[in-house]
């Protein structure tokens, strides 16, 4: 079993405040993964408001969005044999209805 982090990106700030129906949909998606015993960590949401970016030269700016259009909204860690399986799990996420995207990255454990 390998672990993959699913990184959620949203295009619109408004989507960071989901409706109860959206919350329910996400919950069903995540529980569906847990029901297959493929959820390694239910992860967390990342605040779009309480956010700073630090750059060389002691430059600190508000928010995560200076250069990229989308911002990272949260993450979940799944455990599957292959990255294709992790991608298949990600495809069922409701985020695509609102134009978001998911990045799938294998976790390389530091020795």
């Amino acid at each position, binding site marked *: 079993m390998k672990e993959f982090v699913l990184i959620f990106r949203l295009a619109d700030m408004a989507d960071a405040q989901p409706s109860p129906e959206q919350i329910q949909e996400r*919950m069903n998606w*995540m*529980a569906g993964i*847990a029901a297959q015993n493929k959820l390694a960590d239910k992860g967390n949401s990342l605040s779009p408001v309480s956010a700073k970016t630090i750059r060389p030269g002691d430059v600190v700016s508000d928010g995560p969005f200076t250069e990229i259009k989308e911002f990272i909204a949260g993450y979940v860690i799944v455990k599957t044999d292959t990255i294709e399986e992790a991608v298949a799990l990600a495809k069922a996420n409701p985020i695509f209805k609102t134009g978001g995207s998911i990045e799938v990255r294998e976790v390389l454990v530091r020795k």
Partner: protein
Amino acid sequence: MSEPLLPHLFRQEYSKMTAVLCRHFGLQHIEIAEDIVSDTFLKAAETWPLNGIPENPPAWLYTVAKNRAKDVLKRQHLFEERIRPAIGRATADSEAEPDFEPQAIADSQLAMIFAVCNPVNAPEAQICLALQILCGFSLEEIANAFLVPRETIKKRLQRGRAALRADDFHIGPLDEHTIKARRPTVINTLYLLFNEGYHSRSNDGLIRKELCSEAIRLALLLTQNAHTDSPEANALLALCCFQASRLEARHTAEGEVVLFEDQDRQQWDQELIHKGNFFLVNACSGNTLSRYHLEAGIAYWHTTPEGTNKWRYILDLYNHLLLLAYTPAAALNRTFALAQVQGRPAALAEALKLGLEQLADYHALLGYLYTGADTELARQHYGQAIALTSTSAGRLTLQKAIDNL
């Protein structure tokens, strides 16, 4: 004339007296404590038919046990003094006598629960020990409840007892640290004890009921003491009460399982449902959210009439339960709840991903989900479920589902 009274007293007093005596002698001498209690009951069986039943039978038992304990201590004291004079410390104080006051009994029993629910033993061994030491079950009764050969249970108990003796848990007032460290094990063991009764493979309805009511009795002991009371214990009690309210309705007089939707709701025990509500409210007094809370919540919704949102709540609780910890049962039940909320086709798509082909319940679920859509596949999966089911009652229920296709 004393026949019906003695077995009743035995069940009621055996574990109490053993607990009090273990507190006195120390857990490593549990056999001495049990011998004294057995001797006491033997004496009652011999003398009561001749001399009549004493006015206060429990008090009579306590007095006899107390005197026997004193004799044993005196002998032990001599032994200690003669054989090990150099050490100069007796293992027990021969002057003091066992305390059978109600508070001491409650404290001793509580300490015994924490002593028996010891993580050095596997959960199934803990349950056997709990049944024997805390509930006064005989070897036969335990073997009957588990549908396991007597010899297997005997070995399990012997190994478990050896581990307990080696650990030498102090039977006395429980300290904060012990309570905190052992509480999850204690609650889990009582949870498993209840489930063993509720889902027992045994066809003996009486045994099933006794296992359930013993689990409730022991959980009540936890909540009645300020130090051992906890949101989890209350949630467990709520769960037990809700489930137990359906015990009568779950089986026909012939021992056949009645499925939830076919149960006669008039048979549900309303008093137990009220008690469940009471403990569930108590359980939610803090910020703790355990699997017992979620399962109690699910059991609560099952006691309510069919409403528009009932299954949405149940699905949501199963979702949370799965995020807390994966179990195949939670995965299957969650998928069943999904079928009630989103329909069978949506649930079927999820069910096919579960990968639980080795379980009878999985095939029973697939049989249910294929019903109405693909009768042949429904029949096949119900058939596989029957092949994987060990009890005749379970097979009968599945056969009925096939007949109704």
